[in-house]
């Protein structure tokens, strides 16, 4: 998996988080967009999201890093394996569970990957002149 150039605050954390972030973005996009998401666009969306993670206020960025890690481990309690080792359907269910949780923090986490991820994905498509 290509690792994008990293610099700035939280860079090291971002590097180690990249593979997991990519799996989450891939799951979000598989749910939201038509057909199979283009892997290059998944990479680019993940890169842009990870840049957002660095750009947001540090106290939030750290929170989001922690939440991403927790999200991965959480799946062990519900599906027996961390999120990034689940099959696609298991990932979809794990994500949906957080999306509809009664806890605001869990929903905020999926909002970041879901809403922002979708915004960035379509922005990339628009930049490339592709419309669905």
């Amino acid at each position, binding site marked *: 998996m290509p690792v994008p150039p990293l610099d700035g605050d939280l860079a090291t954390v971002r590097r180690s988080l990249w593979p997991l972030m990519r799996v989450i973005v891939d799951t979000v996009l598989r*749910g939201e967009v038509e057909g199979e998401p283009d892997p290059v666009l998944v990479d680019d969306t993940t890169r842009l999201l990870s840049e957002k993670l660095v750009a*947001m206020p540090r106290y939030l960025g750290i929170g989001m890093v922690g939440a991403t890690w927790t999200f991965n481990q959480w799946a062990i309690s519900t599906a027996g394996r961390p999120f990034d080792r689940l099959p696609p359907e298991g990932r979809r269910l794990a994500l949906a569970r957080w999306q509809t949780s009664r806890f605001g923090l869990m929903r905020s986490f999926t909002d970041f990957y879901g*809403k922002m991820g*979708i915004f960035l994905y379509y922005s*990339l498509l628009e930049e490339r002149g592709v419309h669905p």
Partner: protein
Amino acid sequence: MKTLRCDVLVIGSGPGGATTAAWCAEAGRDVLIVEEGPDLSIDSAPSYSMAEMAQKYRNSGLTPAFGKTNITYIEGRCVGGGSEINAALYHRPLASTLDDWQRRYQIDGFSPAALDDEFDAVEAEVGVATQPGGPDPQSERLIAGAQALGWRAKEIARFWKYERQNDGALVGRRRSMTESLIPRARAAGARLLADTRVSALELDGDRAVAATAVCQSDGKKEKIRIEFSEVVVAAGAVQTPALLRRSGLTARIGDSLQLHPMIRVAVRFPHKVADPSWGVPVHQVEEFKPQLTLGCSHSSLPHIALWLAGEVREKREHLRRWEHLAVFYAAIAGSGLGSVRNLPGFREPLVRYPLTDADMALLGEGVYRLGQLVFAAGALEMIGPIEGAPPVTHPGELGRLRTGLPHGRINVTTIHLFSTCPMGEDPRRCAVDSFGRLHGYTNIRVNDASVLPASPGVNPQGTILAIARRNVRKMLSL
């Protein structure tokens, strides 16, 4: 550490700072403007694009004001501040709003009549115009809905200038600060230091004597000390109180943040309505101002996707025909008082804003009215604003939104923040005097959105410019 000297240090280059710098420089003062963000042209990225967000938005656009319902707020962080990324809609506040401010905050020399002159001057100096030609397709829907309901709606003028090209075409350009007051300040000799963040002011008794700043360019950081005779802080409604508080100045600073909470919904019509080539729609419903404003937002595919709530399958279906969708908003004059506080070890302050019960009720009313508007305009369904709730397909279903917006399940944003250092002579509420000087200090002034005593209930940049002009002219005894 490098030391710079100037007569007047202006911190921040948004509408407040640019006005201050232009007037001070033209009065012959030696002015240094220090701006945290980069110095970019207005065309450096397409409006509302992700590139613009990365270049010109603070924190890339992701900053929450915490409360029972978090509110995402957006601020500019570049030379020109918010004026570089905004829709540039221009309003004068109602005379009754100004009257109320004068009375409640005991502001000297603040009659609506005196301010009229300032607004006239701002319009002439920055440039305000309406859009030539008819309305865009989204605004057409807004106007049609308002007409059907007997509500007042109109085009809002903008800080804009239209010029006829050689081929006869009329081309418009936003009159942001980098296109208007910053060049004026520079032409009069003001120096501008971009990519430089002021960390704190150094105090000596009732004066500030210097500022410490960090300049960050080409990946290198350099510490700077800036000595001055007077300092004007114009870093915006969140960063101004954060900077003053970092400097040990806390009395009534950052305790009274006010804002215009806004809810957006995606609306589906039987025909095409979204045409991003028009830019941002410029019509608003006037009927419920200043408490409530209804309007349309920029509706490109990414923005529609962002605001589209609901089931994944339905979303996909909707986005297949995204041009039939458009984003509309309801914005209210919030009644809560938020706070800005620095967190030890963190650069960005913690912002809190409690949406009051009255705010929630008014937002519900706003969404209800918005629903009435779009259905009267021929909408098929209104999608959102409650996450996970089914779309509204009939005006009869709007009642549940009017009374039942749940905390934490709606996306609330804001682009209008103010009142963190309110001006006036009332010592219980005001951080600065009637003309922006910090109470108890001789040479520290605030001249930006922070000094607005309360919500103007309309797009605020015109009011910020008019008050900044009034206050800097007083400072210069003009």
